[in-house]
């Protein structure tokens, strides 16, 4: 798996203007699958995808303790069904805008674990050259546009990506993840209205995990039925059990179908829960242990796993294989990240402006102190 991309391929659409002709891609299949075997296989994929996220992040916790990863790290553990379920409905040409809690989104979208972990190590082979860290994963080639650490800050950008699709008359969808806390920000309101007004192909995927840091839903919102409120903007909106990946997938397909059919933005309230603290810095004093335990019984891995076992689809050896695959993938990512190089500090000023501009006109840093480290610092934890 090649993750050491030097430069991501530019968005294929870059050169197309407003009103370019409609892309002739087949509409994705949706609705119930009739083929039992395919369904079985699909559920295995979903479980494996969730398991990879889970094991990846569990390892992140250890690597954080070992100081291999630094900065803010927000874990998705408990919410895996949301990322995995929603992304099922997306095609490669669709775009995703995410939050600072985006390991799950990135992995589910196909950003290689190697590139994600190297990013968290601050290595140049990371998916953002090590400049973004955990909160700013980018992969333009996969149309994964970050990684935004300003709560709500990705929403307007997602609307703009969707506007571009609309102006170009494609059937592509833009999916924006954001939290229940973000719903209170002005940027949510403005974006929801704009998207509905302009009938933009935007999926508003609200991850309602019932807390914004330490603030419970009832202290964030007077009216906590977020889907109902979203529908007041004039768009279809409904709530989904965010711990059931199949329910999430089904809802996402329905929403994405509606969007591709030209019915404008759709809002999904994905009811979920984070099992871990808000971030590595959070002592998690504000939640009842019993509450956490109650939600743990609805662990998305258990929910799907139990169903599959009941259907006779999942056997112990299979699950052990899955665990082994996940562990290997994480281990591969880790050794990749360990061995990857640090970006030369001489590159600090690169990409403040696009390279061709700088070549022509110089950068802003004429009088800047020069970066002080040597070039090509060898690998290993900085």
């Amino acid at each position, binding site marked *: 798996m090649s993750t050491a991309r030097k430069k991501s391929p530019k968005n294929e659409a870059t050169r197309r203007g407003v009103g370019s002709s409609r892309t002739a891609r087949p509409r994705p299949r949706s609705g119930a699958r009739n083929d039992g075997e395919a369904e079985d296989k699909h559920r295995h994929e979903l479980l494996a995808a969730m398991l990879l996220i889970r094991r990846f992040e569990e390892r992140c916790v250890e690597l954080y303790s070992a100081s291999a990863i630094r900065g803010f790290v927000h874990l998705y553990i408990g919410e895996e069904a949301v990322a995995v379920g929603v992304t099922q409905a997306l095609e490669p040409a669709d775009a995703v805008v995410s939050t600072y809690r985006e390991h799950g989104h990135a992995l589910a979208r196909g950003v290689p674990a190697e590139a994600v972990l190297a990013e968290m190590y601050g290595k140049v082979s990371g998916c*953002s050259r090590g400049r973004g860290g955990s909160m700013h994963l980018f992969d*333009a080639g996969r149309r994964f546009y*970050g990684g935004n650490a300003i709560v709500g800050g990705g*929403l307007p950008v997602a609307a703009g990506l969707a506007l571009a699709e609309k102006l170009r008359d494609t059937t592509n969808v833009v999916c924006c993840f954001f939290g229940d806390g973000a719903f209170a920000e002005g940027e949510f309101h403005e974006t929801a209205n704009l998207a509905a007004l302009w009938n933009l192909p935007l999926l508003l995927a609200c991850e309602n995990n019932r807390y914004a840091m330490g603030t419970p839903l009832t202290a964030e919102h007077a009216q906590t039925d977020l889907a109902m409120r979203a529908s007041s903007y004039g768009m279809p909106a409904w709530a989904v059990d965010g711990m059931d990946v199949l329910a999430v997938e089904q809802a996402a397909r329905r929403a994405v179908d509606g969007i591709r059919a030209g019915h404008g933005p759709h809002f999904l309230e994905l009811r979920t829960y984070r099992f871990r603290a808000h971030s590595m810095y959070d002592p998690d004093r504000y939640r009842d242990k019993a509450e956490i335990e109650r939600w743990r019984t609805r662990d998305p891995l258990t929910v799907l796993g139990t169903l599959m076992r009941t259907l006779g689809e999942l056997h112990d050896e299979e699950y052990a294989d899955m665990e082994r695959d996940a562990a290997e993938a994480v281990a591969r990512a880790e050794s990749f990240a360990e061995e990857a190089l640090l970006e030369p500090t001489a590159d600090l000023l690169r990409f403040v402006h696009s390279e061709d501009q700088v070549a022509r006109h110089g950068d802003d840093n004429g009088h800047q102190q020069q970066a002080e480290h040597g070039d090509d610092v060898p690998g290993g934890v900085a």
Partner: protein
Amino acid sequence: MREALTADDRVFLMGEDVGKYGGAFGVSLGLLEEFGPERIRDTPLSEAAFVGAGIGAAIAGLRPIVEVMTVNFSLLALDQVLNNAATLLHMSGGQVSVPIVLRMTTGAGRQLAAQHSHSLEGWYAHIPGIRVLAPATPADARDMLAPALADPDPVVIFEHGSLYNTSSDLSATHHRRADIFSAAVRRQGDDVSLITYGGSLPKALAAADRLAADRVSAEVIDLRSLRPLDDATIMASVRHTNHVVVVDEGWRTGSLAAEISARICEQAFYELDAPVERVCSAEVPIPYARHMEEAALPSTGNIVRAALRTVGRNG
């Protein structure tokens, strides 16, 4: 604007009342009829969302011109400009470029009072990753658009409110693309450099006239680009005149004028014969009453006095 829309089908215009209303200053009159509501796009009052939407559309490869009516309202979208437009390219390791053009008016002088009279170009000029332009003439205002659109990175264009009152013949032939990267010497002189931009250029030119009557020869520099600053042109002038007055409608403390003064100190210290003078706005919210507003803003008189002071006359 019309030419840009015709030349490149990726270009579109978006902002409050750019359509049927024709833009708050009538700048986009007639465009809606010609290019239709998809490309001449009226927005709701949602500055953060539509600036952010411009950023998203730019990421996707379009070339949005986003009009924020005035700099005063742009504060509501500043998070989008700083944390997304200016930052995404670097933060993504070079993957995500944002070719957006943001236009807004700036400045005081029309008795619009405290909330509608800000000059915050200096704040924008502080932000790495964006280019900041400030045309001081109608010709520059027109000619800067094409190169701004050609820039693969965000460009913010500030037009001073008083520009719209200047009538000038734009129909004549002219070089199409302004060199948006360098300052212009608007008047040559030997004794003192008046360094300014945007809405203060006419005042500086008037001051140079009055100084000439006093037999002080003033050179007038129009910065045009506020980020990056054209240090070469500035320093060449300073080395020639050895005396400097910076004129800037922003409040004095933390003004762009401070940056220019600091750079001159760094790069031409030994050529300076006197301290760099700054003529800025008084540090007050700009009042409505005309005489109070005038007292708060840089005036030709202030500039003349500062220039005389720095060359050691009446000082």
